[in-house]
């Protein structure tokens, strides 16, 4: 299973968000999309999953144009984990994971659907939460439930929009280890958008760095996470060194921002003088 994004451009009436994006993700690859806020990471994931409509022939799976598939057919190939999940009405964890079976069931749930749902909950270590209300869980637990729902779709490709941004360090590692395991043992292709460059470096095979809707750099963590690239894309100076894991580690330097600190102090001092 190979995902190809081919010269993808997307924009709302106000202006373009993605410009001529090309990317390839192969079997068993864990891929990160990094870039500043507003660079188009989430939009790219939504375009790939056809939540946002794109021109024909811009998203291909094994060379086949996905715009020719129905969204139901696509939902059997691709799972999506949104940045935040809020349910309008309370559902149990089991019910939420069962929603992942929607592409396969019409009305009644079969024994096979039940088995898959229980398997996925066990895989993610949330089986003991099965009958709890989804809305009562912690952020980390909720994220695992949503990943389990996406896996219940039995997709080949998994898209996750900032799956770690609201999690503590332990849950961040857990989620990424699970994703890594899926690529290694099940051969899934997994694409995450992620802010934490060090997590991306540590876990992902390939990085795509977005700058204002264009791919600025792509390749292995070593190739993408350089001081020059980070300065060009984020506008900050950073020290990049090799960590004990052998992967690059990014340490931003704050000297650039001393200006901000002095500006804020100046602003408040002036106010006090007037008062």
């Amino acid at each position, binding site marked *: 299973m190979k995902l190809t994004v081919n010269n993808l451009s997307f924009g709302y009436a106000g202006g373009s968000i993605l410009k001529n994006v090309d990317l390839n993700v192969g079997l068993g690859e864990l891929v990160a999309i990094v870039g500043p806020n507003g660079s188009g990471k989430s939009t790219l994931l939504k375009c790939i999953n056809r939540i946002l409509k794109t021109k024909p022939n811009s998203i291909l799976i094994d060379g086949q144009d996905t715009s020719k598939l129905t969204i139901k057919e696509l939902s059997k190939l691709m*799972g999506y984990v*949104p940045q935040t999940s809020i349910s309008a009405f*309370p559902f149990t964890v*089991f*019910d939420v994971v069962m929603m992942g079976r929607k*592409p396969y069931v019409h009305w009644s749930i079969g024994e096979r659907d039940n088995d898959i749902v229980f398997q996925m909950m066990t895989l993610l270590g949330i089986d003991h939460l099965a*009958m709890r209300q989804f*809305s009562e869980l912690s952020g980390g637990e909720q994220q695992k439930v949503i990943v389990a729902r996406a896996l219940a779709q039995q997709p080949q490709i998994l898209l996750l929009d900032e799956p770690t941004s609201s999690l503590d360090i332990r849950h961040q590692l857990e989620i990424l280890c699970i994703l890594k395991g899926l690529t290694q043992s099940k051969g899934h292709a997994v694409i995450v958008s992620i802010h934490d460059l060090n997590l991306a470096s540590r876990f992902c095979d390939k990085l795509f760095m977005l700058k204002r809707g264009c791919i600025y750099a792509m390749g292995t963590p070593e190739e993408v996470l350089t001081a020059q690239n980070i300065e060009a894309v984020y506008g900050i100076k950073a020290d990049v060194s090799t960590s004990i894991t052998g992967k690059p580690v990014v340490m931003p330097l704050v000297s650039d921002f001393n200006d901000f600190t002095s500006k804020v102090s100046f602003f408040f001092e002036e106010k006090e003088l007037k008062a």
Partner: protein
Amino acid sequence: MTTTTTTTTTADLKTLYGKGKKRKLLVIFAIFLALIATILFSLSFGASSPRLGEALTVIFSKAFPFLNIGPASPLAVTIIWTIRLPRIVMALIAGAGLATAGATMQGILRNPLVSSYILGISSAAGFGAALAIVFGVSIATLAGYLVIGNAFVFCLIAMIIVYSIARIRGMSSESVILAGVAVGFLFSALLSLMQYIAPEKNAVSAIVFWLMGGLYTASWHNLLICFPIVAVAILLMMTQAWNINVLSMGEEVATSLGVNSKRVLSINMILETVATASIISFTGIIGFVDLIAPHISRMLIGNDHRYLIPCSALMGALMLLAADTVGRLIIMPTELPVGIVTSLLGVPFFIYLLIRKRRQHFS
């Protein structure tokens, strides 16, 4: 996490889940039994004499003439067969239809305050009826159904306006709700205008009476039109259960699970308008059941719409029939309009459930 300390196995989970499912079915069955009991009670009591035994004789002799069950008095036949029974059937179908429409619209628009009148239907129906009452003008005069036809057509007009506005705004649930509220205000202003300029006092009180709603107009003749339409709409709305479940996680998630949210919304807008309009054109505006029956059901069996929609339908039928029966009996020989009784009885029960249930059932 604490996966190592938990002792639950997949088998345990399945029994646990099985128990939950059984409990839901039991609740639905209990409501069904209560409904049967209410039907029998309602058949047996009224301003005139026939009681349960006689009522059943009439029904069986009418339904199965070949059984030769024995003659019932002509008076009993008239009271049971042409007065009480059609009214009970009307209460059942109206309650079920309004509650189902309310439950699906709450689910699809992801808003617990939504009722089946969210698309401005009630004011539109009121205006349509008023137009026919005051001026004798109707755009759909179906064989003497002047008021009914006009009320129905104006419901459809309201829905089409709401749909067109929402369509421009991308069919988001917010746009449907806001357009519905706006259209509702428009028609209620027109309705007030109708009452203000009505040349006769009789016409004004006829409008007020119509707006209050009631089941006294029920007849087999009316049911012949109303029942099949509403029954089919209810069944079609039930088939939307999975779509509604998935939609409650948001439109984007629904798309990623293969559900076309805009199409689901459009289909359900049409279904719920047809169901609601078919009911209220005959009965006038019956409020409250469509909002509260789904919520009581949510509290009793949760939010899985595969169970919630049938449960709401039964609950709506039960509530409306119980209210109408009480309304008929409480100040005999006159009666209280059903809308007043549903609120007076339903609100305390709803508040009790709201306080007693610790868990939050809608956010």
